[in-house]
């Protein structure tokens, strides 16, 4: 086993990885940019190293990160999610530098990172795919292929960037005019975002459910699945609430999980990954993509299986076999995870950086927090706005929802706007309570944004006491 591991990430996922590493007796190294020097992941690591002035560019600088690992004598690098996690070059350079990259080999990242190649591999392995095109040619030839595809499969049609992911680079066209326009816009956006302007088309499904399967694969040929997750509650293709299991009929659930294992084998998968599917309203499922990294929402799977996925990732990367076989894996209860972000839902979810004046986290049975902030922390405006992931467990769905409601009520964050009040609305929404949701949930429930934000009553009174103290008398007492 490694003695020291560098976490090439920040925020909650960096801390999450460090926790498992430390439990394995591995010392951890944090990296940070100058603009991120007050981040709490730095304080949680055994060592920390500044890799540049930032913002953002140094967390994406492969050479600097590898140099940081070498200078601290780390043997392995865990990329977390985002930043360089799905960059095959990073995986490749780590290996070349004699460092163990905790994730799949470069070729798997390359294959699965290309939506078109991934689809071809999966089709060859017999996985059901959403009808789609290959990469669209530029010019008339591409337009012709798009028109023919639209003629055959009808609208809506999704325009997707080949190098896209995480919901980025996707547009849904409802007619030919939009299709032509979105192909052009999609190309230029993809070029800017990913350095690759290739796009392809997929048939759009109406209000599908988004279901994914967690898989783990070791170097000894073992591939297991850890069951399903439902990630349907999304805003503009960004997941907001995830849960495990996906509450599919047993037969469908088994078929999807077996298909995911087949997909992993077909792609020579190694380490942890997620196979994503869309399920239409007739329970037909289609392969969507494979994410070659730890997912934000992995916590819900950990909660209902009891398996530490990051621990397994590290063990697998160290060449050890998975600690569990498929027959050992059981699923118990329900887990729901919310992404608590510093965003203002009422203002189009605009990030709201600032100082966290008050931070009181919930606790108690069935409550898990993966956070990275503290009271007094100034959220930098350069990074993502995630404050904490709240995962709750319930023996039943209803128990989990009740617990979620209770924990949200006792989760107090002041100083910045957060998504907590919006989630409080959701957990009281009859459609959510009855699990009546799909990917259109956020759009079709705009009334959930109609809430009042208030400081806790005791904090309002404390503010008044501070004024009485400052004035030396109560300016509101008619003195």
């Amino acid at each position, binding site marked *: 086993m490694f003695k020291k591991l560098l976490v090439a990430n920040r925020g909650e996922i960096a801390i999450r990885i460090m926790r498992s590493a430390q439990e394995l007796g591995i010392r951890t190294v944090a990296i940070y940019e100058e603009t991120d020097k007050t981040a709490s992941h730095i304080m949680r690591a055994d060592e920390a190293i500044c890799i540049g002035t930032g913002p953002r560019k140094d967390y994406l600088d492969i050479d600097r990160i590898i140099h940081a690992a070498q200078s601290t004598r780390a043997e392995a690098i865990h990329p977390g999610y985002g930043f360089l996690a799905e960059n095959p070059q990073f995986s490749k350079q780590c290996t070349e530098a004699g460092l163990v990259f905790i994730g799949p080999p470069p070729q798997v990242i390359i294959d699965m990172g290309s939506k078109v190649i991934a689809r071809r591999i999966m089709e060859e392995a017999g996985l059901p795919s959403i009808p789609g095109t290959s990469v669209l040619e530029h010019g008339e030839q591409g337009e012709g292929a798009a028109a023919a595809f639209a003629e055959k499969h009808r609208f809506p049609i999704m325009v997707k960037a080949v190098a896209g992911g995480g919901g980025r680079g996707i547009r849904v066209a409802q007619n030919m005019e939009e299709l032509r326009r979105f192909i052009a816009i999609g190309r230029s956006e993809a070029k800017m975002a990913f350095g690759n302007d290739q796009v392809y088309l997929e048939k759009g499904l109406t209000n599908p459910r988004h279901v994914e399967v967690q898989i783990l694969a070791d170097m000894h040929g073992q591939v297991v699945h850890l069951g399903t997750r439902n990630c349907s509650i999304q805003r503009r293709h960004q997941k907001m609430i995830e849960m495990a299991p996906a509450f599919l009929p047993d037969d469908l659930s088994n078929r999807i999980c077996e298909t995911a294992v087949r997909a992993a084998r077909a792609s020579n998968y190694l380490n942890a990954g997620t196979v994503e599917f869309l399920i239409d309203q007739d329970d037909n499922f289609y392969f969507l993509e494979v994410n070659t990294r730890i997912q934000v929402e992995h916590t819900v799977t950990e909660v209902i299986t009891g398996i530490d996925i990051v621990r397994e990732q590290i063990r697998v990367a160290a060449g050890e076999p998975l600690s569990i076989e498929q027959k050992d894996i059981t699923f118990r209860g329900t887990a729901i995870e919310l992404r608590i972000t510093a965003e203002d839902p009422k203002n189009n979810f605009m990030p709201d950086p600032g100082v966290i*004046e*008050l*931070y*009181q986290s919930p606790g108690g049975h069935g409550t898990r927090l993966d956070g990275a902030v503290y*009271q*007094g922390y100034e959220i930098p405006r350069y990074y993502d706005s995630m404050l904490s992931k709240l995962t709750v467990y319930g023996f039943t769905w209803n128990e989990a929802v009740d617990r979620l409601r209770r924990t949200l009520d006792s989760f*107090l964050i002041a100083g910045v706007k957060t998504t907590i009040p919006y989630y409080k609305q959701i957990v009281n929404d009859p459609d959510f309570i009855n699990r009546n949701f799909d990917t259109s949930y956020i759009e079709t429930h705009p009334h959930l944004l109609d809430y009042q934000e208030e*400081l806790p*009553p*005791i*904090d*309002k*009174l*404390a*503010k*008044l*006491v*501070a*004024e*009485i*103290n*400052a*004035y*030396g*008398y*109560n300016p*509101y*007492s*008619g003195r």
Partner: protein
Amino acid sequence: MSERNRVTPQMSSLEILDFLRRTPGVFLTNNERDVSQSDFRCRIMPQTTLKVAPYRDSTGFFGFEIIGGATVHLDLMNKQINPFEKLRLVRKAMPNTLIQAVCRGRNLFGYRPYPDNVINLTVELFSKYVDIWRLYDFLNHVPNLVTTAEAVKRTGKLLMPNICFSTGYGHTDDYYVGKAEEIVSILGEDIILGIKNHSALGSPARIAGLVRAIRKRFPDLLIAYHGHNTDGNDLGRMFAAAQEGVKIVEVSDHGFGGIYSQAPALSFIQNLHDDGIPTPGIKIQPLLDTSDTLRRERRYYEKFTSPFRGFDPTVKRHKLPGGALSLALEQAEKAGLLERAHEVFSELIEVRKELGNFWLVTPGSQILWSTALSNVLHGRYEKPSDDLKRLLLGRYGPFPFYDPREWIFEKVLESGRSDGKKWHEILAEEAGVLELPDDDLKSRRLQLERHLKRSVTDEELCMYVQFPIDSIEFFRFADRFGQAWLLPPDVWFREGGFPDGTRIAFPDEKGRTHHIDMVSTRHSGDSVHTSLLVDYHFQTYTTKVPKKKGA
């Protein structure tokens, strides 16, 4: 009825009246509202009221007056509590005792007449909590009570129209019996007739005679006596009234009142029991427990007591009621006129005689006091207020006994007129009670919603139409600071900053204890940074404090 010898809010008004008629003895109403107004400048805080509420509730009072008069306005201004919220809290804490409100007839809880729809809205909303409406008019002009009284009848609550009592020219028993006849002829006998002796006037014999005269004319009419102990002699009057058959007498707690407000309940009960008059439902132990607690609370309110301590037998001359007296002295003190207060009191006696010898009770007491003050400062009737002009124009109703002299009409009504009209022309063209058109409550609601940038409740609208400026200030305060009434009185009335390490602990409405600990205070320019541990989380608040003049 939960207990046989007491009334409860669950009974209908007719059941209550029947119970009073059938039950021998004297019932007691605790008037904390008047104690607060007369002896502590309206400053008794809800925390104190709620602290003793369980004792008071089990004492077995007929009623508990906690709202009305100046209290509604001053609750908003000085205590930052919504009067409706206060009533809700009291109702919850005293579920077995009738809640009483004193109301200025058409003037409701303000200083000028309100349109009918404002009166109806107010009575309807307050009646969610108020069980007894004690109504009066400062000119004893009974038509001024009718709209409010009818609104009260519609709610099914107890109606207690009052006769304001005074002495001197015109104030005969015949006059007051005539007023009682006027009230009964309009409102019937299913009422409680109140005698409102706000200025502590008359001897025990005088009050006994008055009660006897009214009872002779209306033997079955229930009568209540509201007196003040300003001259130290109200126990005598209360006892005389009780002996003559008054059914309800207002009292205070010995731990609190007894100077300009009502005389203490316990002394009165001892007098009654010695004379064999029962006090149905009254229990002594909770009465003692109340005052034991109030005695400890009293220190928070000492600074609001009158600058002139002790009883004031000169009230027989100036006739200012308890509440008006302490507020008038506060006003004089703020204006730096405390040294000249005797001049103002002398002038007040003159002014009262000149202006018709009516009753010094709101808004009449304010009109007369401010006229006296103005006369001392600026010369007699040289700077008449608009309210004085309205009085002379008969806006509040006719003078009860005689009109002021012509020279006063001339000085007051012609003052500030640009049209050159003479006072008799003005009287001919403008005098009389005005018919007020209904308020446009829909647009008033929209106005308030625009001010507050949120939707508003009917109760908020009700406050807004009566006190537009002060209620907006209050609503903004409440939106910002929440339930400020939770803070203990020593915090609310704090003088000086809090030393580091000070702990402020108090329960919330649900009984959960909260802590605010002072960590540090740092001054930086015109800002003060206060760091606190608030329920064990750390908070720093920055307050900009305007620099003191001359600093």
